[in-house]
């Protein structure tokens, strides 16, 4: 059953409130900028796509347009950070961190500066733009870097809250955003804390650990499994990939004895890897992965692609059943 203390939106409301995580980022950025004048925005020629238009309108002197130059985006931002600014530097995830990784490594992480990398249009759900623009590797690229926090919000409202939290975090971070409009699971009253997993649903049979738009799909899968087979799943919203909430993952693994991860990313290096690394060493329960299996994306409608690549509610249900079968 759904946990009440997190004040999630009701099922009908969730489906009515359709928005993309990039929308929430755009709102959060304006709110954060209102309370901290050190905050600036830099964008590599994708101002509207990243929903930074309102920020630019409200704070024109604190917004820097740089054109198509993703390496500059990060290195320039690092310079601003060295001067005491808090830069949010944004592009599509395929280009930043895709193209700007070494600048993030050297000029940001090793340099110890307070800068937030914002990667939009991540995942297959970008849709028609095709494989070049569908970042499926960005979590892996970011989570291996020391001094880097990695956030994947589950909906637009959470993206807003995450943006506010990141503006207050003294350190470098990556915020992963999507283009597709998805149900808004969380409400303005849902708490958000970096590094703290949210248990959206409680159950004893399997724990589903998900991030991004797969959280909503995991909740639906859990409800269907309960109704169809009497299988009760926990659903953990792992919005912070790094630092991972070890305690919450381990306690869910102990309680359920099996785990499924669900992400819109390559399994290699992503959430599935992150959770496996922890479980393998501390609590080796059966684990199944829902994610992209070492393939590039392609053009298509969002849902059509998620089906082709095995990222549907049914895929999660099958993974849960497999995980349960593997329990001793």
């Amino acid at each position, binding site marked *: 059953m759904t946990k009440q203390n997190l004040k999630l939106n009701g099922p009908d409301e969730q489906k009515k409130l359709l928005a993309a995580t990039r929308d929430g980022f755009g709102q959060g950025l304006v709110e954060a900028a209102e309370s901290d004048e050190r905050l600036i925005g830099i964008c590599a020629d994708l101002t509207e796509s990243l929903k930074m238009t309102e920020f630019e309108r409200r704070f024109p002197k*604190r917004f820097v347009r740089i054109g198509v130059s993703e*390496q500059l985006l990060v290195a*320039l931002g690092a*310079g*601003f950070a*060295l*001067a*005491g600014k808090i830069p949010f530097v944004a592009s599509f995830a395929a280009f930043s961190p895709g193209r700007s990784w070494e600048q993030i490594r050297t000029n940001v992480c090793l*340099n*110890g500066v307070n800068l937030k990398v914002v990667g939009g249009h991540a995942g297959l759900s970008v849709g028609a733009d095709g494989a070049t623009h569908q970042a499926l590797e960005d979590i892996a690229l970011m989570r291996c870097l020391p001094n880097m926090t990695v956030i994947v919000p589950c909906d637009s409202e959470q993206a807003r809250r995450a943006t506010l939290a990141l503006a207050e975090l003294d350190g470098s971070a990556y915020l992963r955003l999507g283009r597709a409009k998805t149900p808004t699971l969380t409400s303005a009253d849902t708490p958000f804390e970096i590094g703290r997993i949210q248990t959206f649903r409680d159950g004893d049979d399997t724990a589903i650990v998900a991030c991004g738009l797969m959280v909503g799909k995991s909740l639906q899968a859990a409800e269907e499994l309960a109704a169809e087979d009497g299988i009760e799943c926990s659903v953990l919203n792992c919005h912070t990939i790094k630092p991972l909430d070890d305690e919450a993952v381990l306690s869910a693994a102990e309680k359920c004895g099996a785990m499924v991860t669900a992400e819109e990313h390559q399994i290699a290096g992503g959430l599935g890897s992150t959770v496996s690394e922890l479980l393998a060493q501390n609590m080796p329960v059966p684990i199944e992965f829902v994610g992209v299996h070492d393939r590039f994306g392609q053009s298509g409608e969002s849902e059509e692609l998620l089906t082709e690549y095995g990222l549907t509610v049914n895929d999660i249900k099958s993974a849960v059943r497999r995980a349960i079968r593997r329990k001793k």
Partner: protein
Amino acid sequence: MNHTHNESSGEMEILAVRIRQDIIKMIHAAGSGHPAGSLGMTDVMVALYFRILRHDPKNPDWPERDRFLLSNGHICPARYVTMARAGYFPPDELLTLRDFGSRLQGHPERLRLPGLESTSGPLGAGLAQGAGLAYAARMDGQDWRTYVLTSDGEHGAGLHWEAVLFAGKNRLTNLTCIVDRNGIQIDGPTEEVMPLEPLREKYLAFNWNVIEIDGNDIGHVVEATELAKSTEDRPTCIIAKNVPGRGVSFMENDHRWHGQAPNDEETEQALAELQETERELTMNVD
């Protein structure tokens, strides 16, 4: 604190030749490092720390200080020695260069040594950070200036030119890029590996002010930065032509000394040559 040092030009030349001796000793002791670029840029380092920069070695985080970024981080021995001589840290720490636990890392790390401004080594990223600093200073109405030292070889990096475009567009008059134009990179002469000429015209075309100088003449370096300060509508690039390996006959203009430490015998010879130069300069000053 402005111009904490007031050495005469003769005294600064003597200082530079002493710094060169320390550079040779450090790289020899470390067993690896980059002597040619370090020796070539010693005069620029002396000009920066003893004439040009508004800084306070005892207060490296002073908010109103000028920012000096070393983009070609591999010539950090020249910066380390000059910083020590300027009073940032005790000179006896210099021989720890590249040692385990040393603050003097093989390539400079901001978080380890106060006063470095930024971590560098991977080439091409210094000017972009400098542009961010310069833009931020202007946003806040601050009058401190940003200086970025870049190598000629790193002009092969696309990121550097992204920053050149950006600084030109935004008329960052408070930004000065000094090019260590010694004509060599690891694989050979720059004009053979990837020609940069006409370099002056390239910067001009990107809406920069360009000044060409003898980078081994401390007076020229100081004069050029003064001209940069009076340029009102664009950033300035100072192309500092210099002799790599300057002061050590067998290292001068030889790209093989880009990244190689001298052995015992070579060290002895290099130091003897530099000491002889120091004696001559001292006689002239006296």
